[in-house]
């Protein structure tokens, strides 16, 4: 295995530890928003899609694949963060007064 790959594994394991530890007991009302936020983060694969766009071959297949990769990843990222934000609107600071 290449050294880069191995240090990739080290990084992967450490990051997984961080991921596990960073989630402490979450109240159920936040389960869905948190899932949605995490889902948006998994859209990081867009970076992979962009990178793939830099070594595009001439074939139409390659272009289509990369286009699809960028598109789906973007849907995930943009949609993911926006919908999470909408879910979290209920946690805006509470209104001081409300008219009856």
């Amino acid at each position, binding site marked *: *295995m*290449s050294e880069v*790959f191995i240090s*990739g594994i080290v990084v*992967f*394991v450490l*990051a*997984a530890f961080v*991921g*596990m530890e*960073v*989630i*402490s007991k*979450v*109240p*159920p*009302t936040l*389960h*869905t*928003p*948190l*899932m949605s*936020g*995490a*889902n*948006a*983060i*998994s*859209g*990081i694969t867009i*970076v*992979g*899609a*962009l*990178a793939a*766009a*830099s*070594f595009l071959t001439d074939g139409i297949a390659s*272009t289509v*694949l*990369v*286009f*699809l*990769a*960028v*598109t*789906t*990843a*973007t849907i*995930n990222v*943009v949609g*993911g*963060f*926006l*919908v999470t934000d909408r*879910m*979290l609107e209920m946690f*805006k600071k*509470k209104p001081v007064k*409300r008219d009856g």
Partner: protein
Amino acid sequence: MVELLYLAAAALFIFGLKMLGSPRTARRGNVFAGSGMLVAIVVTLINEEKLSWGVIIAGIVVGGTIGAVLALRVKMTAMPELVAAFNGFGGAASALVALAELDQNGANLPGEIAAVVAASLAVGSVTFSGSFIAFGKLQGAFPGRPVALPGQHVINAAMAAAIVALSVWGAAAGVVAPYWIIVAVALVLGVFGVLPIGGADMPVVISLLNSLSGVAASMAGFIIGNSALIIGGALVGAAGFILTVQMGEAMNRTLGNVLFSGFGSSSVSAGELSDKPVNRATADDVAIALGYANSVIFVPGYGLAVAQAQHATRDLGLALEEKGVKVDYSIHPVAGRMPGHMNVLLAEADVPYEQLLDLDQSNPRFPQTDVVLIVGANDVVNPSARDDADSVIYGMPILEVDLAQTVVVVKRSLSPGFAGIDNPLFYNENTMMFFSDGKAAMEDILKSLKSL
């Protein structure tokens, strides 16, 4: 430098995830995570040479538009399925990155790279098809109830084994074919994996698929040797897994249960009289509703006496007052089983007389009240007495709790009270039912409130 900027993006993801876990910081957490993503994207765009800008811009515009429109148009209630759909796209993207790699560099790869390509394809594809089945189930496009072939588990295990075999073949032979077959098998596996699971368990499944899409992204990161992907993917993979376990726990199901028992068709327990749907709530949901309210009125009934929940109720009231919530107690003239029953109990628990409201003081207050928490009362808050001329209690004055913003009812089941009649309040849109013994419920809510 690029690596360090990716590291910064990863740090933003970590902070973001952490903050998403607590109501106070969740919104800012999402912004943090989003900024991390922006950093990662910009760094990539600046760093990579020879970018095919056409494809990129086209992809971003199309994808961004679709994502934004879906996210902003969706109704509140349909959000979970939308998350499933987005997640499916994420999985697809990871698989596509792996395919692009194959397309560009051919199938003659070093062993470890071949392995991650296969993994990325398999996990990404399972995520994609599985997510869309989940989406369909929640949308009602597929039947919500479990659908399975006989011996489904065996078939699924066989498919998983096939994927492993195919990836060994691909690595050894250096040809593209096995990889495409992996995609096909994985897509089928995703479908068959999710179909047998009931609609009620879908949120847990979506969370698990979300964790998988993180793993897929991480594998893609290994393929192109990009640390941002490795870290971000691993984070989501691990965090998503922990979250999945927690969601299962909150529904009293273990993960194995959800995935393999197959038939989590409904988590509704026995003892219910009516089959109209109710909004079930957990202690945490109630705690959040109470904690973010300005004014709360407790309505005790006979169930509070049976559960001997007076002290626990008072403790909850005190904790809310400490948080600046205005707390009162409404006592209906016939609550309990003897005149003054509630008074005896609340006096024992030291509730000050000034906080006790009788019927005439209470009713004008409900419309201005954020949350009414009903502890073991039933007949005295039954709107039939006001609305249904055929009801045996028609004409009795009741506490009109249904006029409040939100109503939380704590009782053990949907069984009726002394008068023996059903209560339409329980099925209202703005009513949450928390099925539990009164005392245990108060204690659980208090615990959740403290950890808010």
